[in-house]
């Protein structure tokens, strides 16, 4: 087997090191907003407001009991308190478990998941009418796409 010149080994290590560091930094920028919701009935439910431009990574939904009428849940970003502009950033979750359950609300992957600093997050539920309590844990990251291998 031919020996690999030292310089090549160091270059490869450098590239792998860079890749590892970028992945670590991106993961390190993750944060969550976990919100207890006393009543998940159909409504707009404010979740919080982001400090920096952030990418929505997805959300865990948990309902503590039967939803009553089947419904849906989505996450939106609003440009102000009243949501003068409302953008859906997640797929729509069908809420039909009929009992306590935990579900994943996936992010959309179209660019809308990139949320501007100062935007408000809103949980919009429809249909649900049995007043179950629950919670959502929404996940974001502030660092994205640190570039290609150097």
């Amino acid at each position, binding site marked *: 087997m031919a020996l690999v010149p030292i310089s090549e080994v160091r270059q490869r290590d450098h590239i792998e*090191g860079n890749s590892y560091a970028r992945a670590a930094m991106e993961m390190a920028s993750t944060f*969550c907003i976990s919100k207890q919701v006393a009543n998940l009935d159909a409504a707009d439910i404010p979740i919080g407001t982001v400090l920096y431009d952030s990418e929505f990574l997805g959300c*865990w939904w948990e309902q503590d009991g039967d939803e009553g009428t089947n419904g849906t849940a989505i996450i939106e970003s609003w440009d102000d308190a009243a949501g003068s502009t409302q953008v859906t950033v997640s797929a729509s979750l069908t809420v039909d478990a009929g009992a306590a*359950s*935990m579900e994943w609300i996936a992010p959309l992957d179209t660019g809308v998941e990139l949320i501007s600093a100062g935007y408000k997050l809103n949980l919009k539920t429809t249909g649900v009418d049995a007043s179950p309590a629950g*919670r959502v*844990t929404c996940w974001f990251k502030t660092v994205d796409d640190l570039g290609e291998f150097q």
Partner: protein
Amino acid sequence: MALVPISQERQADHPEANRLAREAIERASTFSMSVEIGDMDAGDKALGTLLYDSYYIGGYVELHADDDGTIVIEAWDDITGSGSQTSVSAIATLDGGVDLGGELATLGTAACLCTAGYKINALTTIFDGTIAGQVTLFFKTVDDLGEDA
């Protein structure tokens, strides 16, 4: 003074810079889960669900009024903790008449490595005054970035 060969200087700087970067990335990976609990009475209190494998660093609990009891943080494998309910914090014993706040210290063991998708639960005992409380937990997603290279 003898000149230090460049290669020696770079070698000396390299591990130090690497170490600082690793520490910064690890610290930057900290996130918090801060949740208000409407009723601290003895029971299970769901706090949220993890996205990534995360290490429990520690946390704090605060009562909004006087009550006595204990609280411990657990990682559950599913919504009901059917497969595993693992304590990740020491038990905090609160005597609201003395102090409304307490620390939820990490156990510092492998039990604190929580798996992605696990639910975080606060298990309280004894509390019976139906008072509200606040729990702020800290985790990190990046751990052990290796030795100096």
